[in-house]
């Protein structure tokens, strides 16, 4: 097509394109605002803070989104070719300075406001009385280890790893500190008490994610990565893997059970009594083990 005669067909196209953009803006604003798609309610203080920051960001980006898209739609319609001569302009330094400053203030301001939630979870170590649980990922299950009554994690020996015979973490049989270690396929923690997780992986990179905690952390082989949280709502929440770890990635799931203090003590006592060396890593066993109150006698 050679250059058209001025204005030919431009009104229809301009209208359609401008209208599409307006519809896009309406659809997006409605869906983000209507609340049909929401994260579940957070169960930590920091989670609430993160949600506030998310809302702030949604407002700032939302306003920029609406103004820019509607500005685009307006320009498309208003300045469509009707045979007029274009206004000659090479730019405007005042405007450049204005929108540069505005975006610096808005975007970096958001960064400053987001700092606290990150610092509170990542710059501060867990309290000394936090409950420590070691979390280990391997293709494609999670295992959680509690130190037991002695408060000490037993030594691990990779050569002794045998998931089928009940020692998925490779607890060293020679280390007395490991005798009372509790290894379970789901995570049970008391409500309103700080928990420190020590994330490990045996094979490839996994990632620990609980939506309600607003917390995600990769478990990297060769590293022990601590994270901490204090859950304030009793309930059962799903733990999912969010780092591509192989063909079973999509089903590498476990549960976080936030329970009352009494229930937590009961859980520990039951586990200590039962002291299963380690449950088999099947999905059925995972579910069952979480609420198991009795088991075979300890070795």
């Amino acid at each position: 097509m050679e250059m058209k005669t001025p204005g030919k067909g431009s009104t229809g196209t301009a209208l359609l394109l401008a209208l599409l953009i307006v519809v896009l803006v309406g659809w997006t604003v409605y869906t983000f605002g209507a609340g049909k798609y929401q994260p579940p309610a957070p169960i930590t203080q920091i989670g609430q803070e993160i949600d506030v920051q998310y809302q702030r960001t949604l407002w700032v980006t939302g306003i920029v989104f609406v103004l820019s898209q509607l500005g685009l739609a307006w320009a498309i319609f208003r300045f469509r070719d009707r045979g007029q001569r274009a206004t000659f302009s090479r730019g405007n330094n005042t405007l450049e300075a204005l929108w540069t400053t505005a975006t610096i203030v808005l975007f970096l301001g958001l960064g400053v406001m987001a700092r606290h939630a990150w610092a509170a979870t990542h710059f501060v170590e867990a309290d000394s009385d936090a409950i420590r649980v070691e979390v280990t990922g391997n293709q494609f299950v999670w295992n959680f280890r509690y130190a037991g009554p002695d408060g000490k994690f037993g030594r691990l020996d990779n050569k002794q790893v045998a998931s089928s015979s009940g020692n998925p973490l490779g607890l060293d049989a020679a280390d007395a500190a490991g005798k009372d270690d509790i290894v379970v396929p789901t995570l049970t923690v008391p409500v309103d008490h700080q928990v420190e997780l020590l994330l490990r992986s045996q094979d490839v990179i996994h990632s620990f994610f609980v939506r309600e905690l607003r917390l995600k952390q990769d478990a990297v082989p060769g590293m022990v990565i601590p994270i901490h949280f204090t859950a304030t709502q009793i309930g059962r929440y799903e733990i999912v893997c969010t780092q591509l770890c192989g063909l079973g990635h999509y089903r590498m799931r476990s549960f976080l059970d936030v329970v009352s203090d009494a229930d937590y003590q009961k859980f520990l006592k039951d586990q200590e009594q039962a002291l299963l060396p380690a449950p088999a890593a099947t999905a059925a066993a995972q579910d069952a083990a979480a609420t198991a109150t009795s088991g075979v006698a300890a070795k």
Partner: protein
Amino acid sequence: MSSQAHAAPHVGAAPTGFVRKYIFSVDHKVIGIQYYLLALTAVAVGIFLSVLMRLHLAWPTLHLPGFVGGLMTPEQYLSLVTMHGTIMIFFVLTTAPQSGFGNYFLPIQIGAPDMAFPVINMMSFWVTFVAFVFMVGAFFVPGGAPLGGWTNYPPLSGLGEVTGPGEGMGETFWLISISLFCLASLMGALNFIATTIDLRAPGMSLMRMPLTVWAWLVTAILGLLAFGVLLAAGILLLLDRGAGTSFFIPAGLVVSDTVQNHSGGSPLLWQHLFWFFGHPEVYIAILPGMGVASHVLSTFSRKPVFGYKAMVYALCGIGFLGFMVWGHHMFVSGMSPYSGLAFSFLTLAIGVPSAIKTFNWLGTLWGGRIQFTTPMLYALGFVSLFVSGGLSGIFLAQPAVDLYLHDTYFVVAHFHLIMGVAAIFGIFSATYFWFPKMFGRMMNDTLGRLHFWITFIGVYCIFMPMHFIGIVGHPRRYADSTGVNYLATPLLHHVHVFMTVAAIVTAIAQLLFFFNFFWSLKFGAKASQNPWLATTLEWTIPSPPPHDNFGGNYPSVYRGPYEFSVPGAQDDFIPQNLTPAQAGQAR
């Protein structure tokens, strides 16, 4: 500027043999078309893979031809994820806008007869071609294509088949392909930079270069600094896999109860090296699109680019900052949280030059006389998509918010809009815009418009809902939703179905483009020298251009690239090579 432009090796008779003319050609125009056709092949493969993925996500039990037993396995799904991402990012988004159009038009737009190093140019294409053969070959080796994603994190990618099918020979092919691609891109980048610096026509000062040339130059600098790092990382990973080294693999890994014979490596090292390349790569994909958008918006608004210098500085600013933000891919990786905060602020800072560009595009349109040609429609679509895709980056740049959104579909939505379809819209705009110059014929306008409307609506329908399921917490790279209770809901299923239908419609609409492209090659209306009444040097020579571009009459440049609607001028455009006297205005 320099006289050596006129003594480049290209001057001389055009080759006559078929092989020298069309296959092992050293002509930048032929090489540009070769790159473009390679990208066209790759994009067809990439789209096909994505449709298979979408079908599986919407209807996991659907029987698909070509799969053993008719059902797609989780590992097959992951290999589609991996290959779709890799093919699209490397062989489409890096190949078409930079190597394809850059090769063809950079020399012409600066008034040069060819690239500075024509033989290296030929080699970069053919090495890229071999890389593509290896990449596609990964599908056909025992174990199939790799499943580690385009980011290919070790140890998953470093231990061989023990971590999954496809991690054997398929993964090796993938690494060989990527390493070759890096090598080719380094040669290409070198060529682009040398050409832009040394072969500009007299009068073509830096601040008279079209923004497309600026974009290709900055992209080439990014490529020169980034691809070398990925090449090194790729070779180290190949050594870990084949030569018993442990650059990325720590001691004592246990896979399937078997202790692996590695010690001393760091998985995070790969992530740093990969993203030191990977983030600039995002800009390698999008910067040429920004250049094209600026160029086309100015041409069809019949107005100079608003804030040309601000646009140049913003391009350079994005290129510079682009090297300092890679850590935002690693907020939850186990990297120091203090680094995370630094990367957060640098990432938010890169939003500033991006916003400057957006506002200047709106400024260019403002007060213009907008002509809705097909390339213009795509450039307008580019602006809309760039805004939509860019703003979600502000969420992900904050580590605290990223704690929730990282590795969910929110991220998939973000990068597809901004570096996927926005960049593709740049490619489409460039194709419709330059096709007449490249092939001497116009593309069909009706088909082009239809293609635009369906694609514009389609991509928003595919990718906007991905934000919504990301907000629900839907992790990416999940073969299906059966493993997690909160994913197996009717609501999320409906969204998946909606996106799949949109993807199928959009994919089919691309046939309009393919048909239009090949049909117009033969049957399109003949194009004149300057069908768009544009100002840059490519429009001052015949369509298609002669072998040495300017037929021996090398141009001198007297003005900036976007002289539209200049008060007092006779026409509403003044080509860059017109003398003040010819332009009919005193300057």
